[in-house]
């Protein structure tokens, strides 16, 4: 980079950016053509493969697949409690999925959502404990939300800064930070803050998020709560940021072609740092769901793999904020469905299916798309050949 030409003058920079934009737009219709099929294809292909693997696993357990799948659907979308639980799990997964996707758009692999989520949840719980009892919810909830996002952003900033300044692989740093953050939180909770005989902090005194069950009797017993509104807002905000702001454009430019982006005047290290902070903040937001929406305290191990599942969510949602909401619903259904079928097959069945979906999306889907595209090209070529024959 240092040997490259000096930064081009301002005029030219704007020019290059606009040509980039124009070119991207010119490609739009072409992409939308396969995009329409492409949008629905990954989940469908992945689910088909997962269904086959699921059948085999269930058969290997000596049970009938139809019975198991019926139980799975009934236990999730078949009643208000099931739906409530799915929505509760969707909330966390949407946040960690958004966290992974936002970083992914900038070419960064944030494998650290697990630690960022836990740290965010701890931040919310700590503030919730420190606020004076009786602080009105309208003040306490946003403050706790801010705390969760700030702490998450703080944890995300470390790999961001190391990547921006030293070029350290964010994949490795985030994995290592997961262990460090969880061990650190474990230490604080077990030696300073816990309720005796438990692994959780004392309950928060202000900042609880209302549950759906408080408003709609049908959801009684389920953990569904209004944090999901924030998750949806976060998805909308992410979409707006990514596709409607200059910063989002720069973020995507860095993800597509870091060298070109730098030459076009984007301050790449800055973008990397800011993106990792935002990504961490989104994961931290997910920690609120458990702390403010469900239990009312921070408990060790509450993240329970939701951080890693966010990777699956982002993949199936094709790194698009709205796709992620749908993908989060899918994986939340699988996760809750595992509990529903646990009586006859181990609940890990759906965890295996989750991993199969990830592998399928990463391998089979691009392959199927390639085949489809080749087939489409053949049809088009044949069409033109025939048309030419018709003329002559």
């Amino acid at each position, binding site marked *: 980079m240092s040997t490259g030409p000096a930064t081009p003058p301002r005029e030219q920079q704007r020019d290059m950016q606009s040509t980039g934009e124009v070119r991207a737009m010119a490609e739009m219709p072409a992409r939308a053509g396969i995009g329409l099929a492409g949008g629905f294809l990954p989940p469908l292909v992945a689910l088909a493969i997962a269904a086959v693997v699921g059948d085999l696993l269930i058969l290997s357990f000596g049970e009938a697949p139809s019975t198991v799948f019926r139980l799975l659907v009934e236990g999730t979308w078949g009643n208000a409690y099931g739906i409530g639980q799915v929505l509760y799990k969707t909330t966390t997964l949407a946040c960690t999925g958004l966290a992974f996707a936002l970083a992914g758009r900038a070419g960064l692999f944030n494998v650290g959502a697990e630690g960022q989520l836990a740290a965010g949840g701890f931040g919310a719980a700590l503030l919730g404990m420190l606020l004076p009892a009786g602080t009105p919810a309208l003040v306490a909830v946003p403050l706790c939300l801010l705390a969760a996002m700030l702490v998450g952003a703080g944890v995300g900033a470390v790999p961001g800064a190391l990547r921006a300044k*030293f070029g350290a692989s964010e994949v490795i740093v985030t994995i*290592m930070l997961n*262990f460090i953050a969880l061990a650190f939180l474990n230490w604080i909770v077990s030696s300073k803050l816990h309720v005796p005989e438990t692994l959780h902090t004392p309950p928060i005194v202000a900042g609880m998020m209302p549950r759906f069950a408080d408003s709609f009797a049908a959801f009684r017993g389920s953990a569904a709560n209004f944090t999901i509104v924030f998750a949806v807002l976060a998805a909308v905000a992410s979409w707006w940021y990514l596709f409607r702001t200059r910063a989002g454009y720069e973020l995507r430019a860095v993800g597509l072609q870091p060298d070109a982006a730098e030459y076009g005047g984007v301050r790449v290290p800055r973008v990397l740092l800011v993106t990792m902070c935002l990504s961490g903040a989104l994961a931290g937001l997910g920690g609120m769901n458990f702390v403010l929406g469900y239990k009312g305290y921070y408990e060790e191990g509450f993240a329970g793999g939701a951080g890693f599942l966010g990777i699956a969510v982002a993949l199936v949602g094709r790194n698009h904020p709205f796709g992620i909401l749908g993908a989060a619903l899918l994986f939340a259904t699988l996760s809750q469905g595992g509990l529903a079928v646990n009586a006859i097959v181990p609940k*890990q*069945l759906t*965890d295996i299916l*989750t*991993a199969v979906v990830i*592998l399928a999306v990463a391998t089979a889907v691009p392959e199927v798309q390639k085949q489809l595209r080749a087939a489409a090209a053949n049809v088009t070529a044949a069409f033109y050949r025939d048309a030419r024959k018709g003329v002559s």
Partner: protein
Amino acid sequence: MILLTFLLQTIRIAIPYLLAAAGGVMSERVGIIALGLEGMMLAGAFGAALGSYYGGNPWAGLAGALVAGAMVTAVLAVATLRYKANQVVVGVAINLLVVAATRFYLRRIFDSASNSPRVPGFGGEGAGGMFASFVNPVVWMGLAALPVLAWVLYRTPFGLRARAVGEKPEAAATLGVAVTKLRLQGLLIAGSLASLGGAYLALDQHQFSDSMTAGRGFIALAAVIFGRWEPVRVAVACLLFAGAETLQIQLQGSQMIPSQFVEMIPYVLTIVALAGVVGRSVAPAALGKTE
């Protein structure tokens, strides 16, 4: 005497790290990111318990570990080499898959959510006293793994090609090296080594328990990076991490440092190393690129 105990315990603890890290070096040297080490180890541990349980002796356990490791490696190889899927994504998926699958089959086969029944391991109870662990052939495999790998990488034609494939696959291909085949071989070696590391854990504890690798695959990966992909340096890193763990166990009674902080040492060291304090790390140039 205390020093000798410390040393012996460090070696015992280092064995799974040494084996998995050797696998990690092999995998990354041929250009495949070794994020799946944890899954390979866990599969190896489960395969070892199964083999030892049904075969009635630990050698069957080792065979079981190699089969289980090969199965996981096959999935990884197909996804990354045949379909060119993103290696980070595949690595994370493999780890999730193995955790879930071992739990699933733990219930299917042993009807337990947490652990297998007791299985035969190497060395009877009390035999050999303090040096008991050295009747275990896996210990010797662990001690030999990285030196042998160093010899293979730097002194054999296979090693030369492997390094070429990890650094400049196009150039290697031009010279007639079958890049994909060589990467597959590298991955199979990596999977075998990592699954032996898992087998050590299961046979040492005479059972498989849920998620018993507990992040050791990631520590091994940390050692690979910390040792800058050089087998000898990686071996030193493994011993360093194992020493810290031994220290933690020895200090547990005295409560001088909270155990959580000692747990962090390998991870913090890795981050520090990555940030360039120890010197710019030079990853194999083609790492993660299979286009």
